[in-house]
């Protein structure tokens, strides 16, 4: 019953976001601010994760390829497809759920508790439109870009690791990268990125916006939003794979 109530409130929050902006210029500034916070603010961690995820997957795939009949370029194919289909969208988005999600939940929670959201409402501003919509739109723009960058860096990390450890040459890696390439995998990665970006931004916004109490409750809302976002990401990951692949 509680789940249905919460889901209903979540839908109402999303519905409440759709109203005419009071001033387009102010909303545009807020949108750009969110793009910067979500995009530039998470770029460092995304770069680190992506490079190492590609590197480790090259080494571990090579470790499991014990048969001499399988060409070494297959390692690059496996790394490419693993990075595109799973690691770049899912792993990075789970990390972003922690980095971006907790920030959104605690920012809105703090604004709620310190009556800043009430202050916006009193001024005649739709606080859902002003505070939540720019975050979701910014996430939908920036997170897929981060995922594309992550996929590129993951493959690059795999190539560096393969070369540095002497597992496979650059030629083998490049041959593997181009072999049996299916463009749909990139589309699938982008579909996942958009779905996960929506979850990462809207779920923490919901928990932060409706927080009640004080500092303790803000912390709880932040933790809960990350946990729920991660579970939803994994659930929708399975669902998308089952439907689209």
């Amino acid at each position, binding site marked *: 019953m509680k789940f249905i109530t919460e889901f209903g409130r979540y839908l109402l929050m999303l519905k409440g976001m759709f109203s005419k902006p*009071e*001033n387009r*210029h*102010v909303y545009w500034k807020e949108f750009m601010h969110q793009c910067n916070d979500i995009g530039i603010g998470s770029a460092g961690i995304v770069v680190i994760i992506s490079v190492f995820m590609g590197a480790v997957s090259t080494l571990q795939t090579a470790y499991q390829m014990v048969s001499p009949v399988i060409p070494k370029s297959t390692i690059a194919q496996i790394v490419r497809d693993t990075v595109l289909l799973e690691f770049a969208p899912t792993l990075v988005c789970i990390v972003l759920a922690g980095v971006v999600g907790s920030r959104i939940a605690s920012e809105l929670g*703090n604004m709620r508790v*310190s*009556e*800043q959201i*009430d*202050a916006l*409402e*009193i*001024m*005649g*501003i739709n606080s859902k439109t002003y505070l939540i919509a720019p975050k979701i739109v910014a996430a939908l723009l920036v997170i897929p870009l981060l995922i594309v960058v992550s996929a590129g860096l993951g493959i690059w990390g795999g190539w560096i690791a393969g070369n540095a450890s002497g597992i496979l040459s650059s030629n083998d890696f490049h041959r593997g990268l181009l072999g049996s390439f299916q463009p749909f995998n990139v589309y699938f990665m982008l579909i996942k990125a958009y779905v996960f970006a929506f979850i990462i931004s809207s779920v923490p916004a919901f928990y932060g916006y409706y927080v009640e109490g004080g500092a303790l409750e803000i912390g709880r809302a932040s933790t809960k939003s990350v946990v729920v976002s991660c579970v939803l990401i994994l659930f929708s990951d399975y669902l998308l794979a089952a439907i689209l692949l």
Partner: protein
Amino acid sequence: MIEVKHLKKGFGDKLVLKDVSAVMEEGKCNLIIGSSGSGKTVFMKCLVGLFRPDSGQIFYHGEEFTDMSDDRRKEIRKEIGMLFQGSALFDSQTVEQNVQFPLNMFTNWTLAEKKKRVNEVLERVALKDAHRKFPSEISGGMKKRVGIARAIVLNPKYLFCDEPNSGLDPQTSLVIDKLIKELTDEYKITTVINTHDMNSVMEIGDKIIYMYQGEKEWEGTNKQIIFSKNQRLNDFIFASEFLRDAKDMRMLEQTGKIDNNRNMDDLIK
């Protein structure tokens, strides 16, 4: 003028406001007083539309606020300024940006015009050199003044203040009270203040509404309150022996029967 008729509001089984009717007079400081849990904050939040009442009506200049369309309600809210208990300044913005925010949102003025207006109101609340500071860098009294500046920057018709003196020292409280009173008189604003502060009641209470357990128990002026026979009101206002003695002396003074055997030293026992 704000008129409230038979306002009721509850949360779950608990009825917090029980049929409250009142009139907030135009161009005056209307004070709502009462002990903690008496329902005055819920009352104020109903007045500004943050809570939807279960029943009853609220009229802003004769126009019903409770059943108004969202668009019209937005228009009315542009005429409302509110000072929150914790000031509710935007943490990520400087003092200047906080005050300029309503102008950015609701006017098409040039940047120079906005800056001019911001300087005017900040000067009005005696804050000249705090433009570039963030809320975390200023004192509680300054935050209240920035809150007032933000509330009045669009020339509101109605000003709501939720416990404007909470957390302030007596001297700063006096400054804030004086400022609110001056602004009310200067711009003919209908001001509604939630307060516990007896000094405010005596100094600026043009009209006082005392709430007790969700009901309006008494209303009158700061001149009438001292002579009130309402036991609950007297228990609330003159809670300490010091204040009861002060009241006795004031009444003796007012009636011309000054007790020469008592002086201020008697009060400080």
